[in-house]
């Protein structure tokens, strides 16, 4: 038998069983990356290999596929393959009314569904020129910040687990469980909440829920202190993350990095400060930044964001005004159930809202973004005057962050991919749309 492993092209090495064209072009693209750099084609020791990491790999946080070309344990070059969770939500949105599409946003960034709901509702309200009552704005802020905490807790647990400590995951999940209980009380659902409505929120917040949130936030402050004690000076965790996957400020801006990753390179870009929505200009909070741009800096930034989120929630609860939770205009929002059950007009309006819903002016378009837990989450909507959007384009933070990952991975060690994915914190439901 002939043993000629020399000069085998990458494309010939991978022999796909399905999606042949797709696989071949992906391998080809990997081969073509950095073609200006000269590599010796001779590989007598056979140290260069192609490794497919994912799509079913526990450390890729979903269905991300990383195609790596390795020299020993060093990554020479890589390509990411996304789209394994592509459900075509933008196409679905064109065939739904504005309100009907909202449950789909839950399933986009499924780690902070509340923030996705709020982002969608704010975009539609901007398009249809609806101003919502103050109480609803504060309730939405509380929900969004709880969602941010929930998402960051998962990131913390999973990232620390990726760097080798299992027990942290269980501790952060204990706190997440409390957030689920709060959402259960507040919205009637634990996971995919769909609590926001166009023109307000579905249910009011009651005293027992407020007490739950206060208890939770008081407790979380203590927990954050404990976690910091455990991790920040932990030799293993520190060495595992220090200097891993550094991104310079110039690269971060050029490649469109967003969220905590961008702030860890020294740019204080936060949509809550850049273009304040809801009542974020009436609460006090800081945008934490670091200068290093490595995985450890991202850890510090997110930990500080957790504390800031707690601070915002406390202020919102103190300021929570009394009043209605939805616009009292049948053309802009659902009527309350009292009206629906006890008046003919209420019933008709409820039917009309379900059937047609909000109709923004014809031919207008607008973009609205919020600072979700992963970064800037925006919706660009074009209206044709009917109850269905003509076009919805989602600016998802995970997708732009993954694009940066493709640049960062080159030259890193293969074991660090796991930590890097954990540190950048992508959600595939969000990235793949």
């Amino acid at each position, binding site marked *: 038998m002939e043993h000629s492993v020399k000069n085998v092209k990458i494309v010939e090495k991978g022999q796909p*069983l399905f*999606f042949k064209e*797709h696989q071949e*072009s992906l391998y080809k693209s990997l081969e073509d990356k950095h073609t200006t750099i000269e590599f010796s084609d001779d590989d007598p020791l056979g140290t260069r290999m192609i490794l497919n990491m994912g799509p079913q790999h526990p450390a890729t946080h979903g269905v991300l596929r990383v195609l790596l070309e390795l020299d020993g344990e060093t990554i020479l070059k890589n390509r990411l393959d996304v789209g394994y969770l592509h459900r075509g939500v933008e196409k679905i949105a064109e065939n739904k009314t504005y309100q009907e599409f909202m449950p789909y946003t839950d399933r986009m960034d499924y780690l902070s569904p509340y923030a996705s709901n709020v982002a969608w509702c704010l975009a539609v309200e901007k398009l249809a020129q609806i101003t919502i009552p103050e109480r609803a704005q504060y309730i939405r802020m509380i929900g969004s910040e709880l969602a941010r905490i929930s998402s960051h807790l998962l990131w913390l647990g999973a990232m620390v687990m990726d760097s080798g400590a299992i027990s942290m995951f269980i501790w952060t999940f204990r706190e997440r469980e409390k957030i689920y209980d709060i959402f259960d009380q507040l919205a009637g659902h634990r996971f995919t909440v769909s609590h926001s409505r166009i023109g307000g929120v579905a249910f009011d917040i009651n005293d027992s829920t407020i007490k739950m949130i206060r208890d939770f936030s008081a407790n979380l402050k203590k927990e954050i202190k404990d976690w910091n004690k455990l991790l920040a000076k932990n030799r293993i965790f520190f060495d595992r993350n220090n200097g891993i996957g550094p991104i310079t400020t110039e690269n971060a801006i050029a490649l*469109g990095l967003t969220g905590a990753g961008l702030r860890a390179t020294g740019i204080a870009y936060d949509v809550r400060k*850049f273009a304040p929505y809801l009542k974020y200009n009436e609460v006090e909070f800081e945008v934490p930044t670091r200068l290093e741009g490595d995985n450890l800096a991202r850890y510090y930034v997110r930990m500080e964001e957790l504390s800031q989120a707690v601070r915002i929630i406390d202020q919102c609860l103190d300021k929570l005004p009394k009043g209605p939770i939805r616009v009292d205009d049948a053309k802009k929002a659902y009527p309350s159930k009292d009206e629906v059950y006890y008046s003919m007009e209420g019933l008709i309006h409820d039917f009309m809202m379900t059937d047609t819903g909000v109709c923004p002016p014809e031919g207008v*378009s607008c*973009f609205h973004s919020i600072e979700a837990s992963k970064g800037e989450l925006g919706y660009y909507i074009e209206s044709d005057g009917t109850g269905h959007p003509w076009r919805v384009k989602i600016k998802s933070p995970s*997708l732009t962050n993954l694009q940066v990952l493709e640049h960062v991975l080159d030259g890193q060690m293969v074991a660090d991919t796991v930590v890097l994915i954990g540190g950048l914190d992508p959600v595939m439901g969000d990235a793949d749309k």
Partner: protein
Amino acid sequence: MFNMSLPEYYQELVSDLQTKFGDAIVEVISYQGDVTVRVSLENIHDVLVYLKEQHRFIYMGDIAATDRFTSEDRFEVLYNIISLKAQKRFFVKTRCSEENPVLPTSIDIWPAANWLEREAFDMLGIQFEGHPDLRRLFMPEDFNYYPLRKEFPLLGIPGSIELPRTTPDVKA
């Protein structure tokens, strides 16, 4: 030229663009605080370079492509760019025809445009001239349709894609 009341910053920006590029600025749209200029296809690359070099729009937010479903200038591509210095967001859009949906790439201006242009290509079939790696982003290469075009049915096209076998180890 355009008698529209824009916020001061955008007023200066738009007048500067108009003096520099003249008729290439086809339209100025302002809705709910979002200011958009529509630029003719020939000048889009120059305008984007000018905005980055002269007005410090160094951060790319997003690229949104739309199927207008009209006989002329069917596709519209919207660039969502951000100036961190002025703390402002600005939109530039251009249109291209169905027969020749080709735009100059903006990777040389913002490397972030890489995947965003691939997405526009994948979903609507808009080609970006000069893009180094214009593959589909979400759909596999074996797929021959552009799903976000309006004529593509919501339920998809049966048989348009070969699905992986459920027992991958068995040879077909």
